[in-house]
């Protein structure tokens, strides 16, 4: 009889708690979004599955000794996975649109206002009972507005590891929702006439410029913001490998194998942070709201900046490209192109939007560096 009782005690049925069950349902929800709806499937599949695994009773996958514990400890606690992904993103990024029109960097800078405004908003949320965000928590939440998964995970792992699960899920969900969140804001802030502005063709960019660009970005980061060098450095390494033309094998590996392998484990490790006791809190709800706010403010401030630049500049600038400044490469640029085509079917803005789009990646890495330097 004792044996049977012990066996019963070892079953999942006897140990399953209601919160864990809810979190498994959340994991299944993420899997559904990824598989049936195609929302960021590369990340949401491992994250959703990780959420299921981490909530399995008795197995203790996320406790010391468990697989997910070690994956998290090695990859995210150390900050290694987001940086490896950033190297791959660097190897995937073509900066020519930005080098041809460097003023687009201003749009990438303006869109970062979403981050800093949300930081303020997160602290203001403390007036609501139940919320107790510190400055570190608020900074980690605000970086969702940078619309850059690896940057958000990197910063959250340094500043607020206990909120990492919610922050990563919010960041990736909203990145998948860019085509839904951005267009209404873009349409509301621009006139039909502004949306149909055609921009002059971009000049050709030499190989020498493309090779020197990452080195230059790195030197400036070393001089002015060393706190951002982990992110920017890995990004520039990936980009240099892509552009220098002598290490195509390494560049291909960074773009494919490394980024894929890392994505699997990064997703699992993020999923492992979706344990019921950390995720089923009122703070998660706050993070989801603040994340949407950060995206919207970032989009709006990018559009406003582009409008101002259009007024002051001799070359016309379509205000829509400002929305691409939030990064979320290349989704935001595609959204700009689509909204632009609605207003003027002959106006292809994709290449013009790629400039602010990659500027946004640099901008959010710089913003993360500033937050690390000031708050971390």
């Amino acid at each position: 009889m004792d044996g049977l009782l012990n066996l019963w005690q070892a079953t999942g049925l006897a140990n399953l708690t209601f919160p864990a069950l809810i979190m498994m349902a959340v994991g299944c929800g993420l899997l559904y979004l990824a598989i049936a709806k195609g929302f960021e499937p590369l990340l949401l599949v491992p994250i959703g599955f990780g959420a299921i695994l981490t909530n399995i009773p008795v197995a203790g996958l996320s406790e010391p000794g468990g697989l997910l514990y070690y994956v998290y400890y090695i990859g995210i606690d150390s900050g290694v996975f987001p940086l490896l992904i950033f190297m791959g993103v660097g190897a995937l990024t073509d900066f020519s649109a930005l080098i041809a029109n460097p003023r687009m960097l201003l749009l990438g800078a303006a869109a970062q206002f979403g981050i800093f405004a949300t930081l303020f908003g997160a602290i203001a949320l403390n007036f609501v009972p139940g919320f107790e965000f510190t400055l570190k928590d608020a900074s980690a939440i605000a970086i969702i507005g940078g619309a850059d998964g690896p940057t958000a995970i990197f910063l959250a792992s340094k500043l607020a590891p206990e909120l990492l699960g919610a922050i990563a899920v919010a960041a990736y969900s909203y990145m998948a929702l860019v085509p839904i969140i951005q267009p209404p804001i873009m349409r509301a802030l621009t006139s039909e006439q502004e949306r149909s502005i055609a921009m002059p063709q971009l000049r050709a960019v030499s190989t020498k410029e493309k090779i020197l660009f990452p080195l230059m970005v790195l030197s400036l980061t070393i001089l002015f913001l060393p706190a951002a060098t982990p992110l920017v450095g890995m990004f520039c390494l990936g980009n240099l490998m892509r552009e220098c033309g002598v290490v195509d094998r390494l560049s291909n590996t960074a773009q494919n194998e490394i980024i894929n392998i890392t994505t699997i484990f990064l997703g699992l490790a993020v999923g492992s942070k979706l344990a019921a006791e950390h995720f089923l809190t009122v703070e998660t709800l706050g993070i989801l709201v603040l994340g949407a706010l950060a995206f919207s403010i970032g989009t709006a401030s990018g559009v406003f900046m582009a409008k101002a630049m259009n007024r002051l500049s001799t070359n016309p600038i379509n205000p829509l490209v400002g929305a691409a400044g939030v990064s979320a490469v290349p989704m935001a640029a595609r959204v700009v192109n689509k909204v632009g085509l609605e207003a003027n079917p002959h106006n292809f803005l994709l290449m013009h939007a790629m400039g602010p789009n990659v500027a946004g990646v640099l901008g959010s890495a710089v913003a993360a560096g500033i937050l690390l330097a000031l708050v971390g």
Partner: protein
Amino acid sequence: MDIVSLLLEAANLMLTGMVGVFVFLSILILAVKNLARFAGPELTCDTSDRAPSKPSTGVPSDHIAAISAAIAQHRTKK
């Protein structure tokens, strides 16, 4: 720490952060512009002095048509 002083600190961070991002990226704009000056593409893609393209072979076109028809016929027989 009470919320008001945290808010002040957040506002301060917002200001310094935005100024920091703008200053950094503005420096980058200047740097990229200078980069274009000495490493930009050479604007010598003058196509006018390119030799006019010649027909690649001296074989008349009806001969080519006849030969390709023969090859096609041979392949279909196979």
